[in-house]
């Protein structure tokens, strides 16, 4: 029996629900991108173009050339002017174009802006460079106690609306899970013009170096248990936003996680950490495992599987709504209670 693995995401038909999320060591390298496609990946999200980083680098390079320049008669400059040094988004856009040439699967651009002008400018450039869709990687850590949760949400909404007006390619928004009322916020994002949601962003949490007593960025790869968060929220949101595309990221490591996310309602699952650990070719193994599971469990297609355990479709939706602690406690007492 052959299983139809295809799925729809942001209006595109993908050959299967296994995609690669934004990761500079995977989708940022052309040869890895090719290997991922060969292994069966159905879509690739390029690493994020960070406006703040571009701006920082441009300003720093300008400072490098300005520093101590025209200050001393013997050394009016200190550094040769390099004609070809890249500034701005050139490298990113070149990579996007090259990626489109290198693979035939959809290539999604990812953008993290820091100013409204930047979001719009770079979104347009990514569209012009040929991206099949755009993923907005919105990351904002509020530190001002005067800023309300509504203020924070409004920032996201305004950005999505502004970008929506400037590009016509499908738009997905990647957010973190920490919103007070995610269903309401998700609905607002879709109303603002997003075609899909990518759940969830994993933030780079800084660590403290005990020797130096300094915060240091420290990339920690995801673990498979992290998939529980998107499972819950996709199961809930699937029914709230039936026309919206959902991509699941975070903790997508095993066949089981992928299947669970699809059952909850994800259109596509995205992975990076496990492919960094096991290599791009591991995606083929996962794909085989998914196919085998579906065959063994007599599913015809991914479409059939998708959302079959959404909050509305699952047998015990209250479990989704409880905290894990309560669920565990209930289980313990029911099994061992002796009246």
């Amino acid at each position, binding site marked *: 029996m052959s299983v139809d693995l295809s799925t729809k995401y942001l209006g595109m038909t993908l050959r299967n629900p296994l995609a690669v999320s934004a990761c500079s060591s995977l989708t940022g390298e052309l040869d890895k991108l090719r290997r991922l496609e060969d292994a069966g990946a159905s879509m690739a999200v390029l690493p994020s173009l960070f406006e703040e980083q571009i701006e920082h680098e*441009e300003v720093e*390079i300008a400072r490098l050339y300005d520093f*101590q320049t025209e200050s001393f008669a013997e050394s*009016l400059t200190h550094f040769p002017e390099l004609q070809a*040094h890249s500034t701005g988004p050139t490298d990113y856009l070149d990579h996007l174009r090259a990626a489109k040439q290198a693979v035939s699967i959809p290539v999604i651009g990812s953008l993290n802006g820091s100013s409204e002008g930047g979001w719009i400018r770079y979104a347009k450039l990514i569209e012009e460079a040929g991206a099949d869709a755009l993923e907005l990687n919105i990351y904002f850590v509020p530190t001002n106690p005067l800023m309300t949760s509504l203020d924070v949400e409004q920032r996201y909404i305004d950005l999505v609306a502004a970008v929506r007006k400037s590009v016509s390619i499908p738009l997905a928004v990647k957010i973190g899970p920490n919103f007070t009322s995610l269903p309401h916020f998700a609905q607002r994002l879709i109303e603002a013009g997003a075609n899909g949601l990518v759940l969830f962003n994993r933030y780079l949490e800084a660590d403290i170096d005990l020797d130096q007593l300094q915060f240091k960025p420290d990339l920690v790869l995801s673990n498979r248990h992290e998939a529980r968060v998107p499972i819950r929220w996709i199961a809930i949101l699937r029914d709230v936003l039936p026309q919206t595309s959902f991509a699941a990221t975070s903790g997508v490591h095993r066949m089981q996680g992928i299947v669970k996310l699809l059952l909850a309602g994800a259109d596509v699952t995205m992975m990076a950490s496990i492919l960094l650990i096991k290599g791009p070719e591991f995606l083929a193994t996962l794909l085989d495992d998914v196919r085998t599971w579906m065959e063994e469990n007599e599913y015809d297609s991914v479409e059939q599987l998708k959302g079959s355990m959404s909050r509305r479709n699952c047998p015990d939706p209250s479990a989704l709504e409880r905290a894990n602690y309560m669920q565990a406690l209930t289980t313990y007492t029911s099994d061992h209670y002796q009246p």
Partner: protein
Amino acid sequence: MTSQKFVTVDGNEAAAYVAHQTNEVIAIYPITPASPMGELSDAWSSQGRKNIFGVVPDVIEMQSEGGAAGAAHGALQAGALTTTFTASQGLLLMIPNMYKIAGELTPTVFHISARTIATHALSIFGDHSDVMAVRQTGWAMLASNYVQEAQDLALIAHAATLKARIPFVHFFDGFRTSHEVNKIEQLSADDIRSMIDERLVREHRARAMDPDRPVLRGSAQNPDVFFQAREAANPFYDAVPRIVQEEMDKFAALFGRQYRLFEYVGAADADRVVVMMGSGVGAAEEAAEALNRRGEKVGVLKVRLYRPFDGEAFVAALPKSARQIAVLDRTKEPGSLGEPLYQDVVTALVQSWAGVQGDRVAMPRVLGGRYGLSSKEFTPAMAARVFDELKADRPKRQFTIGIIDDVTHLSLKWDEEFSTEPADVTRAVFYGLGSDGTVGASKNSVKIIGESTPLYAQGYFVYDSKKACSVTVSHVRFSPRPINSTYLIDRAGFVACHQPQFLDRIDMLRVANPGATFLLNSAYGPDEVWDQLPREVQQEMIDKRLKFFVIDAYKVAHETKMGVRINTIMQTCFFALANILPRDEAIDRIKGSIRKTYGRRGEAVLERNFAAVDASLAGLHEVTVPKAATSKTNRLPPVAPGGSDFVQRVTSALLAGRGDLLPVSALPVDGTFPTGTAKVEKRSIAHEIPIWDEKICIQCGLCALVCPHAAIRSKAYPAASLSGKPKEFVSVPWKGDDLPNHLMTIQVAPDDCTGCGVCVDVCPAKSKEVVKHKAINMEPKLDHLDREQANFAYFLQLPELDRSRLKVETVKGSQLLEPLFEFSGACAGCGETPYLKLMSQLFGDRALIGNATGCSSIYGGNLPTTPYTTNADGRGPAWNNSLFEDNAEFGLGLRLAVDQKREYAAYLLRQVAAQVGETLVDEILTASQHDEDAIRTQRQRVAELRKRLADCDACEAEKLAQIADVFVKRSVWIVGGDGWAFDIGFGGLDHVLTTGRDVNILVLDTGVYSNTGGQASKSTPRSAVAKFAAAGKASRRKDLGMLAVSYGNAYVAQIAMGSHPAQSIRAFIEAESYRGPSLILAYSHCIAHGINMTTAMTHQKDAVQSGFWPLYRYDPRLARKGERPFHLDSRKPKMTFEQFAMQEARFSMLARSDPEHAKHLFALAQADIDDQWHYYEQMAGVERAIRDDFEEVEV
């Protein structure tokens, strides 16, 4: 064929533009002010720019100018069209090859930015002493007077040399022409091609060495034929003047600009003529025009072809009416009958006057004058005075102009009110800081006007002698006519002060014309600013009826994220006020210029600049100048009252910018200056200074150790010595058993600190409650200035501890030693100076220093002041800079003299042994002086000896008393950078290492020629981007340390203070104590690395941890004891080269510009590190049996 493209370029670019198009091989070596010609050629070739023959010239950096000349000679002999660029000492180093190249009748042009030759002092500035030193080599010499000519005559020289087969020196005045930006008509490639005769190029190639047509050149000849062979070339020299004029005429026919070998301008019937060459003719011409308008009859004869000197053409160019001639030479030949051009003119007149002008016309009288040495100003007023002198009945036959000579009274006094500046020329002077972008903005303004309007534009820029926070003065002219005013502006219609604090020290309104506009950047608004001005400034504004405008440019810069770059803001205000262009057009053009300048930096940078331009005019306000000066403050004196007479008379004048007014008698006759002068300067340039929190301090001493300027100090003192202290002076008990009952203080020198923050960055002591708060913290200077000034003054007068009581081998202990190197003008955060300061602390009271030319000689010995200083006993480093190339040999000479003096002193001492006491004599002669205690004891013995000698009537006693100090151990240091040690001075250094003599060689290794702007040396690491290695250095860094180790008998250490300070101190002590040659390679971070200078010292840890800079010490004494002499002081690399490299722009910029090439070079660099580490690890296990050859030389 005519070209009509106007560009604004400087003289260096104008000449290099032609040289790059007309040559195939370009051998280069950096030297001020010619370096930009090499840099541009290298950059153009690396961009793939082709010459007129269709190929990209091969630009190669050599190890010295001698090397460049040798390579050029070889390339010429093998048939390539070849050139080089140089100046000053560099040209001297080329002389041997120049004789050869001329002797072989080889066509080439060397382009020279003429610069002063070092005599009593080095000078980077312009005169003709270098080119005059090659006039005897057999080269033709063609002088360009202006930027336009630097291009045009460069081409004429290239065309003429091919026809004449005589090599050409094409020269123009260093800085005045090489660095003046002016609007010129640029030749196209086709234009250049039209002047170069391909047939002659083929003939040159046909004469090349070729095994298919073998010949022999460079033979050795004997008395029988050498002479005749030397004469055989005569016809070629005879033909040169005709050929040059032909090429000049051809050039004129093609492009309309007519040049002549000798070009006369002025009255056709002039009775007085000034003869000169170089940029000074601009001033002389203007003076002559002005005088002729007044009815006088004068003229100027410009010499273009100086060699071969065509006497007949010279005489023919003179008006027949000339009765008096003054020949002005921009050089000095002490002991001669006159300077070279003067002598040539006299000879030409004697030989050719009658033949050309006829017997009946009397030959003119000739005076000779010197002017403009080391870029000394030469103005129309001075030229007019020379014309006046020619009228005198008894004129000075030899004179000087431009100075006040109150010793030999040769100088002419000129009328400072004489001016030729026309009313329709816009003249503006801008005072700024190097860091605020003023010069860049002024250059842009010149380009904007020069390249987009019919106006002509000229910019000339003056810099002070400091590398940190240097003051720049930009002189800008705009005119409807070409501008040949080759002198500074002293009558400006617009004066801008970009830094308000300058008003306290600099009399900048001196140059303002009555009614001029004065623009000030100030934090005070139009209603408050008047009260903030010194009284002298207020009065001058009133007296001159200046129009006064103010803008808070830093506020605008801050709001538009421009940081401290106020350049575009001030430029916008200038255009708004100067009325050269309609305001909107000016703003459009400024933005266009910004896009051109910063376009490649990216949108973010452009947007910030545009925002700054747009925000500028809203902040610009006119200030109503009151009728009376009301300020209660006055301009500050350049130095504080007190100090030596020399400081008050001379140093003070130099600091006030009045050095030009010092008479000859004020200056030392032999270049000898007192030390200890940097401390009088009090530049007070820091915005933030380190403030000590004694409660947290662990007294490690690191802050004082790393401070590049000795501006943060550590001192321990007996508790009892603390009396009369300022109320807020802080002391804490000394932590340590070595100094019981002692207190200590960490003290900032608030007016000497540059605010680099290195001390705070390295401070390891952090508050337990607020981690970011350390034992020292950068805080706003103005919040602490008064208190810390008082504290520092008190700190200085606290007693220094007895050196013998200190654990000088520790960081903490070494930093209790008084630094005898302080407050240098090096860059803020400099990586070199902490080593020199440490050396001065450890050995400065008995050190002789030979310093190679470079950064360390500039911040060490560039007037007005020197950082080398003395202790309370008057002892301190004795310092001299000989040259760049000879420093190791020079330092060896210091050692030889010291040793010889000691030998003589020992001889004399033995002669008087009976009188002064055998025991004392034995003790003096056998003293080990191995540590501070032993040295102190030896000083006491010498003092005792002097006492006894005073009572001794032996004839040797007086001789001995004069030199007895030599019995106290002398520490000879040979200091320089890697450009010296690895490249130009390597041969000498190598030789000195083999002599076995007790010298200490300290290489301050930045991996580039830092002083001349970051050109690659053989210490430049593989993959680093540097000038002359714009594509990343392809080859591996020379392992100079291991070359020295291979001799066996040299002490060698590689150190990095920021990584392992204790190892650095240990290496210094071991090197100095070793009675043979020692070499220390000291990792010195540099602004040319493209790093954050505040964290650069900490960053040295990564240099070591990546294996990029392994630490080691090789001590031959261990080998003599049967131990392993090579000790690795750093651990196995634990980070990759790439991880280290990507933190430095010198590497990471390559990754941006050429990722694939960077990947390749980074991999090779990693392989270098792996290989080197493996090699060093093996070395650490190697046993050697080194014989002590110094036993014999030890006394």
